[in-house]
């Protein structure tokens, strides 16, 4: 395996140290005349990013994304590991499906793919899927989620939380009270009333989070809350943590940056679930991410083919791309305003998601002997996002035409470059 000497990078945005990448691990303070030198002057070195929430669409919707193209987009965004959500077709609710997704990730070689197992058979919310079989499979599933659907039944949620304790799993809940959000199209508020789009009220998220925090405390299990989108949710999670309960939470880049005002265009590229909320919500989410109430930035990368977005709002699919722009959005919303340091970013986008997902090879500090999962990032440039430049199969980025800071220059996964000079290696 060839080795690389990364010269001049600021480790976590701090001191400059040269890093040797050799035999899949990081080596500090050792020269290597044979190594290929990468001039990283002015770049920031971060541990390879870990996404807890990615939709790779394979199997079933290979027209929108495949494991290969999705992990390529992830690598372009600085990710070395992604958790692939279970809402594929067939649903990832058996050991067979999760092993297939896991294997496709290994064959592609752009990211380590950790399949998320469905909580219930077919995401139908009636019967627990074989969680233990998925945990024991080659994919070693630890994160379980019906994402896209809420585990609405309180008894089923309790049982899932209890059951995953046997293998140190975590239930990642898509918090959406189903009855309160029937046919919901956008954030419920003044604007939804004016636009005549059925509202998705904040209380529908908060009511489920409150219930699930109480359930997790009651049965002594681990709860992870997906894509927190409201100020009230942040406050509930803050209280749960203050009570010492084992609750973690994620926020998406788009909920940090974008607001429901964009729906006034009726352009479905802004249609997402949970919906874009208000400025007050984005501020609360940023504050929650800054103070650690929200543990993780997760992309909820949700590719859709053009025809599923090039239509009227109500007919369009929910979801937006996120992998390639995540770090830029975090710089824009968190680092540049002084809410997070780059070391904090390493925590929120690498250490913490790896810890929650029980992933041992990723999310490790950049130390001698650590696995060589590394991203080199240039925070000094600004770029206008072009949808056509995405390496995803889909084009539904809400940031098209928007200027964002920063650029991923290189990504290394287990010592091998997946991205070099800002291009797929």
């Amino acid at each position, binding site marked *: 395996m060839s080795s690389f000497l990364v010269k001049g990078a600021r480790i976590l945005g701090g001191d400059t140290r040269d890093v040797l990448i050799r035999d899949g691990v990081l080596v500090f303070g050792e020269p290597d005349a044979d190594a290929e030198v990468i001039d990283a002057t002015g770049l920031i070195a971060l541990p390879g990013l870990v996404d807890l929430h990615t939709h790779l669409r394979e199997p079933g919707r290979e027209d929108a994304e495949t494991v290969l193209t999705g992990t390529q987009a992830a690598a372009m965004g600085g990710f070395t590991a992604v958790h692939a959500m279970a809402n594929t077709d067939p649903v990832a609710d058996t050991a067979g499906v999760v092993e297939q997704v896991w294997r496709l990730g290994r064959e592609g070689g752009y990211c380590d793919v950790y399949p998320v197992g469905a909580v219930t058979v077919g995401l139908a919310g009636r019967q627990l899927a074989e969680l233990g079989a998925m945990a024991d499979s080659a994919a070693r599933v630890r994160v379980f989620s019906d994402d896209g659907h809420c585990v609405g039944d309180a008894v089923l949620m309790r049982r899932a939380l209890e059951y995953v304790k046997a293998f140190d799993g975590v239930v990642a809940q898509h918090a959406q009270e189903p009855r309160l959000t029937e046919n919901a199209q956008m954030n419920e508020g*003044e604007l939804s*009333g004016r636009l005549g789009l059925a509202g998705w009220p904040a209380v529908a998220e908060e009511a489920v989070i409150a219930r699930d925090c109480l359930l997790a405390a009651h049965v002594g299990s681990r709860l992870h809350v997906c894509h927190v989108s409201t100020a009230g949710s942040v406050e509930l999670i803050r209280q749960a943590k203050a009570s010492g309960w084992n609750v973690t939470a994620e926020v998406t880049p788009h909920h940090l940056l974008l607001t429901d005002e964009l729906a006034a265009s009726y352009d479905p590229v802004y249609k997402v679930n949970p919906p874009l909320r208000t400025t007050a919500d984005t501020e609360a989410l940023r504050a929650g991410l800054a103070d650690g109430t929200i543990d993780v930035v997760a992309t909820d990368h949700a590719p859709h083919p053009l025809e599923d977005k090039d*239509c009227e709002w109500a*007919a369009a699919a929910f979801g937006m791309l996120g992998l390639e722009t995540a770090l830029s959005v975090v710089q824009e919303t968190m680092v540049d305003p002084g809410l997070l340091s780059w070391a904090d970013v390493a925590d929120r986008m690498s250490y913490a998601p790896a810890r929650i997902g029980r992933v041992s090879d990723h999310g490790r500090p950049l130390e001698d002997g650590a696995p060589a999962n590394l991203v080199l990032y240039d925070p000094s440039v600004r770029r206008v996002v072009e949808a056509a430049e995405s390496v995803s199969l889909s084009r539904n980025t809400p940031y098209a035409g928007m200027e964002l800071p920063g650029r991923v220059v290189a990504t290394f996964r287990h010592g091998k470059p997946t991205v070099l000079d800002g291009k797929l290696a």
Partner: protein
Amino acid sequence: MKKHLLSAGDLSREDAELVLHTAEELRSLADRPIKKLPALRGRTVVNLFFEDSTRTRISFEAAAKRLSADVINFSAKGSSLSKGESLKDTALTLEAMGCDAVVIRHGASGAPHRLANSGWVRASVVNAGDGTHEHPTQALLDAFTMWRHLGPRNGGTLDGQRIAIVGDVLHSRVARSNALLLHTLGAEVTLVAPPTLLPVGVDSWPVETSYDLDGVLPKADAVMMLRVQRERMNGGFFPTAREYSRRYGLDGRRMATLQEHTIVMHPGPMVRGMEITADVADSDRSVIVEQVTNGVAVRMAVLYLLLGGSEPAVGNPDGADA
């Protein structure tokens, strides 16, 4: 006027009054033996209806034909929502055939915005009702009807006139467009409904709201009753149809509390016995049938003005000038 009519909020007071004055001229046409003008000869108007609405469609059809436009009726029931042809492909088809105005009725809020702003067609787009969003020509014909009845005793305007709009505001595109337009025209609108049928955020609209119909009626200059669809009962918005009628229906007893000049309106189709009783609907105060007549005149005015009519519509030198 702008190129499209998507929302009643697109109309300035000047625009709205121009439509009313133009409609007034065009309305006189209905009394002539030959009800036709050459104003839009050679222009093509497409009625693109993704939802059944015979009343609105024939109203637009009559309006376009009386202006000598060629009319194509395109009933596209089964939109992309039901996996039929997509809105985009339908639009591209119309564009390829060549048309000057598209009158669109669609079940999805915002569909006319997509049609107008996605580059699929170059024609003017007229929103003939989209989902639970807006129905601006209905608001214009309602305002026109009020203006004809209330204007003469109010200096020729609707300034300060009190308009009560009663019923299922939450799901009503008519209420949204009326609230915007009547505010633009200076009227004072009160939306009356049970709390479950008022939209979230209605407090930021330029209107008053009330849960108490009996308190509002004696002060109103016009009362507009909205249709309440029986399927709303399945959503639990109110307990029973009978209770709804008792609290929010307009019957003879309530009609007796109105001022002498107050008119009663309904955009149709009515559910007699639900939101309005037969004796009220058929009373002298009711202008419901006149609303239909006025609908044709207002839609003629809208098509005429959007398609660039620069001469007075009926050759009256004091009349409209677009």
